[in-house]
Structures are given as C-alpha cells and as structure tokens.
C-alpha cells in the first residue's frame, strides 16, 4: 500500500514533509457566532457611510437655496424615507454599541494603581453617549 521508499538498516533519510495547505472557504464567517457578529458589525459601518453621504446631500441642498431644501425635507417626510431612517438608526445604534463593547479591549484605564474594570468603562461610555445625545436633542428642540 505504502509507496514510501524502503530504508535499509543503517541508512539515514532526511524526512521532507509534503505539507498540505488547506484552502480557506469564503464561508469561513458562518462557522462561528462570533464571526457572524463581526461581519454584521463591519457591514453596519456602511450605514455610517450612508449617513455621511446623506449629510453631504443636505449641505448641498442647503447651498442651493430654499426650494432645494424644501424638496429634500419633503422627501424626508415620505413613509419610505421614514422607514429607511428607522432601519438605519437601529443598525447605527447596534454599530455604536458594538464599539462600546470592545472599548475595554482597546484601553486600560487606571485610577491610581487600580485598573478600572471593563464593565464600568462600557457603562461610562454609554452614559456619556446618552448625555451627549440628550444635550444635542435638547439643543435642536429648543431652537
């Protein structure tokens, strides 16, 4: 069965491995929940990009005068646009949370010589986010 060369007594043969290199499947990310989560996190960054583009469209409309701005805000009021924004917002909040989640991995914060536990870092980040969001919301409403 084996086609390995016969080695007579006293003879030495250096073993040369025939290394097998497995190919990576393009579906590597379905193998584990953690990878799926990672892919979703990365894909939701497209929504962040979408919001940046949206802001540029808004600025552009603003620079073109009241009619252009009116047309854009009219479009914003359509059910399609509202639905889209709700979906985007959910994805964006998910994206933001995932980054808060990994924050303790990226930084070690010390008070005195004590390490601040990761859960407190996450909570602190989320609290700060809520406060800033509320402040901005309040600013918009009160103008």
């Amino acid at each position: 069965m084996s086609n390995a060369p016969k080695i007579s007594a006293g003879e030495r043969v250096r073993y040369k491995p025939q290394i097998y290199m497995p190919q990576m499947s393009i579906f590597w990310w379905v193998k584990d929940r953690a990878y799926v989560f990672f892919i979703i996190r990365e894909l939701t960054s497209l929504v962040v990009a979408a919001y940046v583009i949206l802001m540029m469209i808004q600025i552009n409309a603003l620079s073109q005068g009241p009619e252009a701005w009116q047309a854009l805000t009219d479009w914003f009021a359509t059910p399609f646009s509202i639905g889209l924004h709700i979906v985007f917002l959910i994805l964006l909040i998910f994206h933001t949370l995932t980054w808060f989640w990994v924050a303790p991995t990226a930084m070690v914060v010390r008070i005195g010589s004590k390490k601040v536990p990761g859960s407190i870092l996450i909570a602190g980040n989320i609290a700060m986010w809520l406060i800033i969001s509320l402040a901005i919301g309040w600013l918009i409403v009160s103008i």
Partner: protein
Amino acid sequence: MEQTITLQVQRYIPEQYPEPYFQSYEVPLRKKWVILDALNYIKDEIDGTLTYRWSCRMGVCGSCGMMVNDRPALTCATFLEEYAPGPVRITPLDYFGIIRDLVVNTDDFMGKLKRAQPWLITDEAKPLSEGAYKQTPQEKAEYEQYSMCINCMLCYSACPVVGLEPDFVGPAAIALAQRYNYDSRDEGEDQRNEELTGEGGIYSCTLVGECSEVCPKAVDPAGAIQRYKATGAVEWWQSVLMPWKGKS
C-alpha cells in the same frame, strides 16, 4: 457497558493519500478525560499511526492545540464530557500547513515571533559594574500578562485575518512585542514600531476579538493589538501637531 463517544479525526498521510480525510474512532467516554486522553487512548489501543503533538498535558507547553469541533483549543485542557454524546471532530489548527495528521508546520509562526524582536533592547548597554537592571513589582505588572503566552498558536487559528492575509504577523507576536514595549528596562519600541506598523502589522487587525476568547492563558492579544494601535494614533497626532517634539 461503558459509555463511548466517537472521535472524527482528520488524517493526513502524504505517502498514502495526497489529501486529508476523516477517520472515526470510538473511545470510552470517561469522566475526567480530556480530549488528549482520548487521542492517547486511540494511539495506545486502536491505531498507533495517529500522529499529534503533546508534551506536558497540563496547559504549559502549548503543543497540543487542535481544532475541536472547529474551535481552537488545548486538547489537554478540554474535557471530553463536554462534547457528549458526540461525535467530536478533531482537526489540525486552522490556517497552518499540515505535516501529518494533526501536526502542523510552525515555521511561519516562529518567523513571525521574530518580527516582534522579543528581547530587551537598550540604547546603550549598562556596564556590568552598575549592576542589574532593577524593576519594581508595579513595573513588572505592566507587562506580566503578555509574558504568559505559551506559543500554543490557538489565537492564530481563531483569527480570520491570519487566514486571509498570510503576511499578518498575528496576535501572539504583537502581544509579545507589547510584553517588551511595556517593560521598563526596554528601549526598543521605535524599532518594533517600524516593523509592526508596516505591511502585515498591527493595522491588519480588524478586531474580530476571537484571539482573546480562545487564549488559554488570558494574554488578551486583542487588547495588546488595540493598545498598540491607540499608541500609534497618539504618536501620529503628536507628529502632526507638534512636529518639533520629534523622536527622542
């Protein structure tokens, strides 16, 4: 009758067959047995040709890493019972070349460790007469976690970037670099940055985070890499905003 469990083990015997294939073995499902015990049972009682690495069987040597049901694990620290009723799939560590059965080629990994320049680098060696390089326990604590690595390579098999980008230096190597960067006796950070901020360096990491999940020694390589990126970013801004400060 004693309860049993089936192990589906990936074999690769290049002299007999050019591709890996699976072979099933039925082994006793004993309490307190780890996966490695089951493999040793196969080798001793069923099939002496099965080839795999192990040595310490206590999570210290780092040689028994394999994929257990597609997750990288130290087989000497993974209980068989957790996988009951089975079957359990045992394959070699992902993203490594296979030499035989469950034995993978570590050459590439060794080369990557070297890229981290894992030794104390000083600008000028202190003369012997000045005595040893001293360190306080606090200073030691700064890097201790990163010094716990046993080179088991599990983190490489947990990292899709390692698979997609073969030049990526990888989690353990970067954690190892940080082990020296955070050492109060070391002055080699600039040298390591040069190597690790370039092609295949820290910025190849997309923070999947699984390296830290599978690490048996709580080294947290993902943390090491993100901290490295953060320092890199701070230094970059410094060089832009305060170019006069320059490098010391």
